Structure formats: structure tokens, C-alpha cells
């Protein structure tokens, strides 16, 4: 048996027929991992933990929630007041959505910086983009469930996007709503899908992990492992590092849950949905703000009306991520060895933050200009900069191997002190 050590006869008996123990030993224990992963590599496992937390709290919340337009708001408040520790479950779930996006976006930008999407990890990356899309759909529908003002009007605005589709748009929107406005059928199907999609995400996460374990993790140097001297077993080295990172992450998460549980939400969502009264501002949750800014930044383009153009730009912004492995023509993965790309990466981060800032404000004056510039730059980065950089950027020389680079970085301080002496 591959799993060394265990002499338990029952384990051996099971493993001979159903090799789960061998599988776990192989994928968790012996799984060779680059020895030089930094703390940015913690965010993948953090996202996995968040998914589990969201599903666990969500299942319990669903036992107390009523998906009906006249009862949904009150049932959530009942969870907050009368269900034992209902306030805790609900605040974990509510803030969990935000923290899930924080870790996922960090994970995504880590992939961008270190070129984790490049060959042979293109499908691994694309599965990640699929997970992101599923997360966005799940989060959007979950936000509708408490049936507050922002739930209702957010649902109205976002489902109305589909009316931009020529000819069949309006029919599609009616079909999505199950009626002629967002109403009880909409709430019911959103609840159903909000319960379903997380399990679809679990499925895609499995594929994401299969693809990951095929070639193993990328690393900060972006070069392949050349042999056993470049690797360490996942357990115990990265299990303990992931656990330590999880502890630090939970400190921040707990602080928000217990001391500022509503700070990331919109106070308007504590007003029950009222189809006759539009709130002064309709704003999505913070994690959708950059996309909301792109949606609202696009003017009429030739024959395409602004609404359709905005929707296309919005979906295009994620579509670009999907085809990113073929847009970035550089063979060097890590931005550490790409002097120009490194700057472009940080500009893209700034650009995303600027889009988020624009998304939180009414599209007036300065915000329109900034939104358009930032949207254009986003497309410029992926469609023009990346292909050109692949051609014209001169990367720095790559280290021979991971272990050679690690040794050099440890030797450097010693050499410096010798020089001083």
C-alpha cells in the first residue's frame, strides 16, 4: 500500500477495495509542492474554507427562511431575533460573501502576477474563471433573498440587463422573472438556484483541484520544478502554513462579524422591499462595483445602444480573463522577471480599484470620465498591452532552479556582510 505507516487492518481492507486512503495520502501527504510558495498562495485554500463555511451556514439558514415576498424580510429578522444564534449564522453568511470575494479576488490577482494561467495550467485557470462566474451569480441571487429595498431594486436592475438583447430581450426578462416584474416567482427561483449553485461550485472546484494536482502549484519564480530538491511534501509544510494563514484570516473575519457586521452592507436593505418606491441610490454590494462601473461607463457605440454596449462590456471583462492564457504571449510566468509587466500589473490593480470607486458613485461629471478611462484601460491592458509585451518585453534571466534561487537568496546577506568586512 502506498500509504506508509498505517497497519490498521480495517484501513488496509477498505483501501484494497476503495483506495481512498491511498488517494488522500497521495494528494495531501506526499503531493510534491514547490518549496518557495509565499503567503499569497494561502488564498486558494482560504477560498475553499470560505465555500465550506458558506454552504454550512446557508443550509442551516435555509431551515428558517421563508422565500415568499410577504414573509421573506420578516423571516430573516426572525432568524436575527428568535432563532438561537441565528444572528451569528446570518452575520457569518452575510459577511462571508464579502470575505469569500476578498480571498477569491486576491487569489485571482496572485494568478495574474505570477502567471499561473500559462501553459500547462490554462484549463486550471479557466475553471477558476467559471468558479468566479458561478460565485457572482450565487452572490447576486443570495442578496435578493432578504427582500430588502436593495435586494428588490438590485434584482430589477440586473435582470433588466437581459432586455438589452435585441429582439428577444424583453421575452427573456419576462421568462427570468416568471411574470411582468420581479415578484414572488422570481424570489422562489432565486432561492432554489441560490441553494443549487454552491454545489455546482463544489463540482467545479473538484475539477480545479484535479487540474492543479496534474502539474502542481506554480510558484513565485514561475519556473518548473526540476527535481526533488525543489519540492517539499504538502503535508506537513503547507498544511501548517495554510492553517496559520487561516487563523490570521479568521481574526479579521471574526472582527467584522462580531463588531461591524453591517459595515460592508447597505443600510437600505433593512427597509422591506417596496415596488412603488425607488431608493435614492441603487448600488450593488462592493464586490460588484468594478463591474457595475464598466456597465454604466459605455456610451452609445455606432449602432449599439449604450445599454447593450454596457452589458457586452461587462461580460467581455470576464470573457477576457477566460482567454487570458492566449492573450499573454510572454513565455515567462512570474512578473518578478518581467520588468514592464510588473508595472502593468499594478496599474491593472489600480484600474480595478478606480472602477470600484466609480461604481460606488452616481455617474455624473468626473465619475463618468474616470469610469470611461478606467474601462478603456482595462480592455487596453488585456487586448493590446499583453500581446505587445509578449513580443517586445525583455525578461530578466531566470534562475536555473527553485532550489538554486532559494540558496542564492539565503547566501546574499552573508556575502554582503563579507563585503563590509
Amino acid at each position, binding site marked *: 500500500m502506498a500509504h506508509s505507516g498505517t497497519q490498521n487492518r480495517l484501513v488496509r481492507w477498505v483501501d484494497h477495495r476503495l483506495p481512498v486512503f491511498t488517494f488522500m495520502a497521495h494528494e495531501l501527504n506526499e503531493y510534491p509542492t514547490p*518549496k518557495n510558495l509565499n*503567503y*499569497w498562495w494561502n488564498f486558494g485554500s482560504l477560498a475553499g474554507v470560505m465555500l465550506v463555511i458558506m454552504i454550512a451556514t446557508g443550509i442551516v439558514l435555509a431551515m428558517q427562511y421563508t422565500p415568499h415576498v410577504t414573509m421573506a424580510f*420578516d423571516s430573516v*429578522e426572525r432568524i*436575527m*431575533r*428568535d432563532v438561537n444564534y441565528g*444572528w*451569528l449564522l446570518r*452575520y457569518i453568511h452575510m459577511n462571508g460573501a464579502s470575505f469569500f470575494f*476578498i480571498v477569491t479576488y*486576491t487569489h485571482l490577482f496572485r494568478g495574474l502576477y505570477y502567471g499561473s494561467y500559462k501553459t500547462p495550467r490554462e484549463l486550471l485557470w479557466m475553471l477558476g474563471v467559471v468558479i468566479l462566474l458561478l460565485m457572482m451569480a450565487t452572490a447576486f441571487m443570495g442578496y435578493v433573498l432578504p427582500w430588502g429595498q436593495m435586494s428588490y431594486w438590485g434584482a430589477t436592475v440586473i435582470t433588466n440587463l437581459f432586455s438589452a438583447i435585441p429582439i428577444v430581450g424583453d421575452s427573456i426578462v419576462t421568462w427570468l422573472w416568471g411574470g411582468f416584474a420581479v415578484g414572488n416567482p422570481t424570489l422562489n427561483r432565486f432561492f432554489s438556484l441560490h441553494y443549487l449553485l454552491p454545489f455546482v461550485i463544489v463540482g467545479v472546484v473538484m475539477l480545479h483541484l484535479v487540474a492543479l494536482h496534474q502539474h502542481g502549484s506554480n510558484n513565485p519564480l514561475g519556473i518548473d520544478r526540476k527535481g526533488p530538491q525543489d519540492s*517539499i511534501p504538502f503535508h*506537513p*509544510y503547507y498544511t*501548517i*502554513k495554510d*492553517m*496559520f494563514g487561516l*487563523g*490570521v484570516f*479568521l*481574526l*479579521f473575519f*471574526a*472582527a467584522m*462579524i*462580531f*463588531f*461591524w*457586521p*453591517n*459595515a*460592508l*452592507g*447597505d*443600510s*437600505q436593505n*433593512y*427597509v*422591506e422591499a417596496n415596488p412603488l418606491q425607488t431608493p*435614492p*441610490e441603487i448600488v450593488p454590494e*462592493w464586490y460588484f*462595483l468594478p463591474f457595475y462601473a464598466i456597465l454604466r461607463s459605455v456610451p452609445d457605440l455606432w449602432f449599439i445602444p449604450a445599454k447593450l454596449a454596457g452589458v457586452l462590456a461587462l461580460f467581455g471583462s470576464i470573457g477576457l480573463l477566460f482567454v487570458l492564457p492566449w492573450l499573454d504571449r510572454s513565455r515567462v510566468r512570474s512578473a518578478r522577471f518581467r520588468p514592464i509587466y510588473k508595472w502593468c500589473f499594478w496599474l491593472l490593480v489600480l484600474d480595478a*480599484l478606480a472602477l*470600484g*470607486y466609480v461604481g*460606488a*458613485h*452616481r455617474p455624473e461629471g468626473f465619475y463618468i470620465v474616470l469610469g470611461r478611462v478606467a474601462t478603456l484601460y482595462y480592455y487596453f491592458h488585456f487586448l493590446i498591452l499583453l500581446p505587445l509585451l509578449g513580443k517586445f518585453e525583455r525578461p530578466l534571466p531566470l534562475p536555473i532552479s527553485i*532550489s538554486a534561487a*532559494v*540558496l542564492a537568496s*539565503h*547566501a546574499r546577506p*552573508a556575502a554582503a556582510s563579507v563585503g563590509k568586512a
Partner: protein
Amino acid sequence: MRTIIAAAGVVAALVASAPFGFAQEQEMPTPPRQAWTFDGPFGSFDRASAQRGFQIYAEVCSQCHSMKLVHYGDMGPSGPGGGLGFTEDQVKAIAAQPLVNGKQVTDGPDEEGNMFQRPARPSDALVAPFDNDKQATALYGAVPPDLSVIVKARAGGLDSIFGTRGPDYVYALLRGYTDPPADFKPSSATANYNEYFPGHQIAMPPPLTADRVTYADGTQATLDQESYDIVNFLAWAAEPNLEARHRTGVAVILFLLALVGVLYAAKRRIWAKVHNAEHAGAD
């Protein structure tokens, strides 16, 4: 690790600053942040004040505003978060006494199939001044907002980290009926000028004035005192489990700090083998 913390700081600052923009866009004075006893990780309710606040709700606000999520029994010892400090008997007496709106609970149908009126019991929600939204509109011209979670539903909500919070806003609004500027043109005869209400025109006439209520505990009922008391009551009503949340939170943070310490030590120890091997190789 340092870069991660720095990046988190930048993002947190940006997210936290976003709500400021909205307040400025409306060109309204920002209600100042007040110090409340329920602020911060160790905050708890000022129960004496919140009980006086309930008196104000019962004698003034309930004329027009419902609080349909709050039950009389919530204020007793078996209520969420341990209640508002009233005893079981006090709660029974409070429920039996009609609010200033004089409404009773509509119950039924009885054995003849008829609905009937009866005094409230601790298990009932606070009796609303109107039977439905249509009646409210007929009576007041619009539906007065339900006050159950009002401090979570206004301004930055209950716990915006930097901006104005709901309790600050309600406190400012109640004290914000100042003399209108000379160029103030009310859009209707019933509009009242309020410094802090968006657009400055509020349908609600000034609800509180000095000595609007007489406190049983002898507290001087100034406008400031009344506003402070009603906000404390509304904050309790909006988040009755706040104290349990704070207590649990402090325990969880302390536990996590200890856990992180242990995990860090374990991580250092396990990785020492790898680092030692590297240093040995480097030499």
C-alpha cells in the same frame, strides 16, 4: 505577509470611504457621530435610558409608527439578549395597557367565526397604529416607516466604521427641527423644515419637545434627553442580541489570538528543518 497586510489596509480604507461620497452628493449636513454606550467591542445598552425610550415610543411615536418586529415579551427577561430589563409582571402590565394609538389586538376567528378585539399579551407584537398600509396612507398621507430596525436602515446603518450611523442620524433628525432659512419654500402645507432630513422637507411634525413625557424616574425630560433615550430604545429594538454578539466576539478573538500564536510556533518549528537545510547548503 507585510505586503498582504498593506494591501488589505489600502482596500479597507477605500471601501470604508465609499459611503462618504453619497453623503456629500446629497449636499446635506452630515449628522455628527455621537458616543453611544453600545459602541465598540465592549459596548452594552444603557437600559435605564432605553426603558425611558420605550415610554416615549408608547406615549408619542406609536401614535403613527408601528414596530411590528418587536414583541412585548422581548422586553422581559426571556427576550432576545436578555430583554430590556423589565420583569415578567412589568411586561404583562405594559402589554395590557394600550399604546397611545389606543389600538387593541385583532384576534380570531372565535367560535362563531367572528374576529374580535382584545388587549395585547406578551407574545404579541407591539400593536400598530393602523391595520394596513392603505389605512395608514388615508390617515397620514403616507405610510410612516416601521421603527423596528430604523437605526439599521438609515445613514451608514448600525455600525459604519467611519461614517454617520443610523443612531447618529435619528438623534440628529429629532433635534434637527430648526428655524428654516429665509428662502425655504415648503412644497406642501404640511412640510416641516428639518436640517438633517434629505431635501430638508419632512412630513413628520416635530415629534419631541421638552417635557413631552414625564419620566417616572425623575429624569429631566429635555429634548436632548428624550432624543437620547428613544435612540437607545430603537437601537435595542433593532439589534437586541448586540451584547451577546459583543461578548461572544471578544471571546472568539481571544481564542483566535491564542490559536494563531500556537499555529505560528508550530509553523516555525516545522519549517525550521527546511530553512536549516538551506542554510547548510548555502554555507
